[in-house]
């Protein structure tokens, strides 16, 4: 038979079957109307004979069955009314058994049996027992399943359950349960027997068809779940063991999966909890191909929901040691099912973890245990390649983070980093990012060095190059993102206690130093600033102590900044050696300033020295040099820690470097910036007017030279911007009261600029700048006051 034709043929056969049923049903109805029992039985048997077909797929057979089912309802009504047919129900029960064909016979028997129970002329248990036993005669899987399903259907409301009107004298619930169990067992056997062992394509189709019938079998479990009389005792003693026995013994993948799931779904959570051991004991005995993880996950889901439903049930969980049992069961399942893919294993652990987190959130040791088990399973294997498995591991790692909303908790889990080790580099990084995100989102402060240590262990994928990743592979953007995250993270590592903070800083340094040239520029600055913040804090502390207790200065507290600065020195040194000299220079200056603020002159001096060395040796680019020299000048200007000698050395150097810049305008600007080094507008700042003037004059000379150079090379004079800028400096120092800056000098400069501008009228910008400046002078003159008087003598 070709598969293609099969479908059409089936339609035809179904139509024939339905026509047959209708035909016989017509005569049956006539006989019913005439109250003719003999004819009724004859035609009903003929009608039911249509169900003897073997040609239909389960789906089509179901349609046929439903037609017959409707007719049987009418028949049952007729059987009920003895006055119509005049035969006692007992005799009727025998009479229908005269039918020669078994299938119609048993359908009729079940129908009469249902009436028989209703009549209460015999105990329900006896009738049910007889029916379920007689049904053994149909061994054809589909026909048997439907017959027994019919039996289950008609008997459903007639079980001798507790409180039912069919309840007998003693222990009748047992009979009800026995009946359902037996029917279930037989149905399952039939169902399993449908398992087709032919070629793949047909098998797939058959298995699909078979799967459609599963609810027929599962219905029995439903009924069991609804029997009032099934209390925990009975469930434990009878129902569960027998159902499990059947499930295990049937050795069928489809059935085992479905039925285990059914058990979990139809019986109350409380029962599951109390019979956990038995239930779980069945899992390792299932076929290796059964999707145990899904079933177990559902069980754990249900249990955790149950636990969540009410606090009162939690002691039950503890009492039955639910966690230990589940954990053991999972271990055993994994052990026995050698072929289970790794993704399945991890999925199981994820479920268990979820369960633990929901039921025993306070038991971190449980969580750690789960992770440990997972590590054990994963260790000794190559890193995970499977995408789905990786996803599961990520889920495993994310779950505790989400639950506790607090990385600190996760840091106490000793197996956490070991699980992370199992991830491939990419995922490992992603996971590390998740951890950092979690810290950021919750604004968690990591406050001990130990935790920091663990944390860095976790995110080491971001901190250093792992084996096997070449740098080229990295996406630059991602890399930046990652490193920026790490930088942000460093700020979260903080403790108010200086001693601990110092340890933290040491730990961080240790880790980031291993980061390699690519990472250092990202990670060093936050470390420096974090440390400087600490130094600043220590300083405040010292000051506060001094305020409170006069001269009492903590012995170790001032010692600490020194250590820190030493550390920082080394750190920045590392940075300069990896070709980020500009960054290093900035950091040196930053440190120098901080050291200055701490009154640590030698250290500050050392930092400056380093900065200058860097300037000399590493910074070659002229633009960078300009920037650097301005930075140096700026920083130096603000420092007041240095003694005269040191300061002279440094300012001298700075001025010297300024004059040696490549471009004249740069030189000029650097030099006039240097003038500020000699005039600190502070109460106790130095005010060396002479040297200011020297600088400015030198700047003027350079500006002049620049102007001439332009005139020579381009044949016309250059812009006067530099002169205007110098003029502004003059005005600044003039206002600040430098005696060396005279009104004459200013007037001369203005004149010079005016002359220069006449020979060159092209530059509008400098023109505007100059006229603004002149306007400012005018304004000051007109404003009057002390400053106005000073300005008054300036000739414009």
């Amino acid at each position, binding site marked *: 038979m070709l598969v293609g034709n099969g479908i059409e043929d089936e339609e035809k056969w179904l139509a024939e079957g339905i026509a047959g049923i209708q035909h016989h049903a017509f005569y049956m109805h006539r006989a019913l109307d005439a109250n003719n029992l003999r004819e009724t039985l004859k035609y009903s048997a003929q009608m039911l004979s249509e169900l*003897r077909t073997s040609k239909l797929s389960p789906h089509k057979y179901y349609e046929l069955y439903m037609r017959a089912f409707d007719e049987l309802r009418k028949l049952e009504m007729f059987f009920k009314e003895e006055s119509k047919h005049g035969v006692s129900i007992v005799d009727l029960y*025998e009479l229908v*058994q*005269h039918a*020669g*064909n*078994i*299938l119609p*016979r048993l359908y009729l028997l079940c129908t009469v049996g249902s009436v028989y129970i209703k009549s209460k002329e015999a105990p329900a248990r006896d009738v049910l027992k007889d029916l379920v*036993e*007689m049904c*053994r*005669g*149909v*061994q*054809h*899987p589909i*026909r*048997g399943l439907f017959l027994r399903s019919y039996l289950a259907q008609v008997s459903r409301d007639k079980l001798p359950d507790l409180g039912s009107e069919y309840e007998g004298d003693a222990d009748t619930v047992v009979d009800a349960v026995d009946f359902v169990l037996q029917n279930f067992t037989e149905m399952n*056997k039939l169902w399993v*027997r449908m398992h087709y062992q032919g070629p793949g394509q047909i098998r797939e189709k058959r298995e699909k068809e078979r799967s459609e019938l599963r609810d027929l079998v599962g219905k029995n479990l439903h009924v069991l779940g609804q029997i009032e009389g099934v209390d925990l005792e009975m469930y434990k003693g009878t129902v569960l063991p027998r159902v499990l026995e059947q499930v295990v013994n049937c050795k069928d993948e489809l059935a085992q999966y479905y039925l285990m799931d059914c058990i979990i779904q139809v019986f109350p959570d409380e029962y599951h909890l109390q019979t956990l051991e038995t239930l779980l004991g069945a899992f390792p005995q299932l076929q290796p191909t059964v999707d145990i993880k899904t079933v177990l996950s559902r069980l754990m889901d249900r249990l955790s929901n149950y636990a969540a439903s009410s606090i009162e049930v939690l002691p039950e969980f503890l009492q039955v040691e639910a966690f230990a049992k589940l954990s053991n069961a999972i271990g055993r399942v994994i052990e026995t099912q050698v072929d289970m893919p790794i993704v399945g294993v991890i999925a199981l652990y994820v479920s268990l973890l979820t369960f633990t987190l929901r039921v025993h959130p306070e038991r971190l040791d449980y969580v750690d245990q789960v992770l440990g088990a997972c590590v054990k399973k994963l260790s000794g294997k190559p890193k995970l390649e499977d995408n789905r498995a990786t996803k599961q591991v990520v889920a495993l790692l994310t779950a505790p983070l989400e639950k506790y909303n607090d990385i600190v908790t996760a840091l106490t889990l000793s197996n956490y980093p070991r699980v992370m080790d199992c991830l491939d580099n990419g995922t490992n990084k992603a996971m590390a990012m998740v951890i950092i995100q979690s810290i950021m989102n919750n604004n968690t402060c990591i406050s001990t060095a130990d935790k920091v240590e663990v944390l860095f262990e976790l995110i080491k994928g971001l901190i250093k190059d792992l084996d096997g990743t070449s740098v080229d592979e990295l996406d630059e953007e991602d890399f930046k993102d990652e490193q920026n995250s790490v930088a942000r993270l460093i700020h979260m590592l903080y403790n108010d206690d200086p001693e601990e903070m110092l340890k933290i800083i040491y730990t961080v340094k240790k880790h980031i130093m291993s980061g390699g040239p690519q990472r250092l520029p990202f990670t060093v600055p936050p470390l420096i600033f974090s440390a400087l913040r600490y130094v600043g804090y220590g300083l405040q502390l010292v000051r506060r102590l001094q305020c409170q207790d006069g001269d009492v200065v903590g012995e170790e507290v001032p010692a600490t900044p020194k250590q820190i600065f030493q550390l920082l020195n080394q750190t920045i040194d590392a940075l300069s050696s990896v070709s980020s000299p500009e960054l290093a220079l900035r950091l040196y200056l930053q440190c120098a300033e901080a050291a200055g603020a701490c009154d640590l002159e030698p250290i500050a001096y050392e930092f400056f020295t380093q900065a200058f060395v860097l300037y000399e040796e590493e910074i070659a680019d002229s633009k960078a040099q300009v920037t650097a020299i301005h930075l140096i000048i700026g920083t130096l200007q603000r420092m007041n820690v240095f003694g005269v000698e040191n300061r002279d050395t440094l300012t001298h150097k700075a001025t010297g470097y300024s004059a040696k810049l490549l471009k004249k305008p740069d030189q000029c600007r650097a030099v006039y910036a240097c003038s500020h080094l000699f005039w600190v507008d502070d109460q106790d700042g130095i005010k060396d007017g002479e040297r200011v003037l020297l600088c400015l004059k030198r700047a003027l000379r350079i500006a002049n030279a620049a102007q001439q150079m332009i005139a020579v090379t381009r044949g016309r004079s250059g812009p006067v911007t530099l002169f205007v800028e110098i003029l502004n400096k003059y005005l600044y120092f003039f206002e600040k009261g430098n005696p060396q800056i005279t009104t004459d000098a200013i007037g001369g400069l203005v004149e010079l600029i005016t002359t220069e501008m006449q020979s060159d009228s092209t530059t509008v910008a400098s023109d505007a700048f100059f006229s603004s400046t002149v306007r400012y002078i005018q304004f000051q003159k007109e404003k009057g006051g002390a400053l106005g008087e000073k300005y008054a003598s300036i000739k414009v």
Partner: protein
Amino acid sequence: MNFIVGAFKPPCIVSISFADGRTRKQVPLKKENGHTVMVPLFQSQENIVGEVLIEPIHGKKLEHTGVKIELLGQIELYFDRGNFYDFTSLVRELDVPGELYEKKTYPFEFSTVEMPYESYNGVNVRLRYILKVTISRNYVSNIVEHQDFVVQNYTPLPSINNSIKMEVGIEDCLHIEFEYNKSKYHLKDVILGKIYFLLVRIKIKNMELEIRRRESTGSGPNTYVETETLAKFELMDGGPVRGESIPVRLFLSPYELTPTYRNINNKFSVKYYLNLVLVDEEDRRYFKQQEITVYRLET
């Protein structure tokens, strides 16, 4: 009938009636011509009492050389049709030779008649009981009238009634064990039992239980055996697996059985068998036949 009777102009009407004819149980009996008539039912050792009424046709004189009534038990074998073998023959003289002018009744009585065999209508044999009235005449043929009646004999409950239990099979192919609860069943009995499958390596389509009747007639080289299947009762639909046990419950009442007859007067036997048939998907039949004894239980 009247027309035919009229044509031959029998000189009188003869009728036989039983003393307890109104109360006695009547059973159907199939006659040679295919008609079924109701006849009284007797059992062995009963008294058969009644009267014979002879009514000459009005105004005619009936001369006779004597009137007698016989009770005959006869066996007729169909290969020797028309030749009746009387295993029982009792005679009562009703009248001495003389003349009859008007109707006359003759009472008769056969007391505690030994009728060891039951009436039986088989394929090749018939066993019947009749009352035969003969009015003997000179020169012309005798006037003969028959009345059939049926004899059924009851058997007490057998003291020993073992179950039938047997394991049969085809090596490495099919092994079953079957059990019927008794070896002797009465006519309205139920056969209970089960079939247990020890080994199934063939694809069985269904299984049925047949009731077969084996009638053997004659003896020696002239033995004729006729087997009929009276019942086909499906026990199982579809193929079982190892370890299945299939229940048997067969009510005998719907079937027209007789008791088992063993060697009736050395002329014939009727035996019953249960035949368990398994049919595989290629329609091959595997069967095992077991004799059962059927008896009539007094109700």
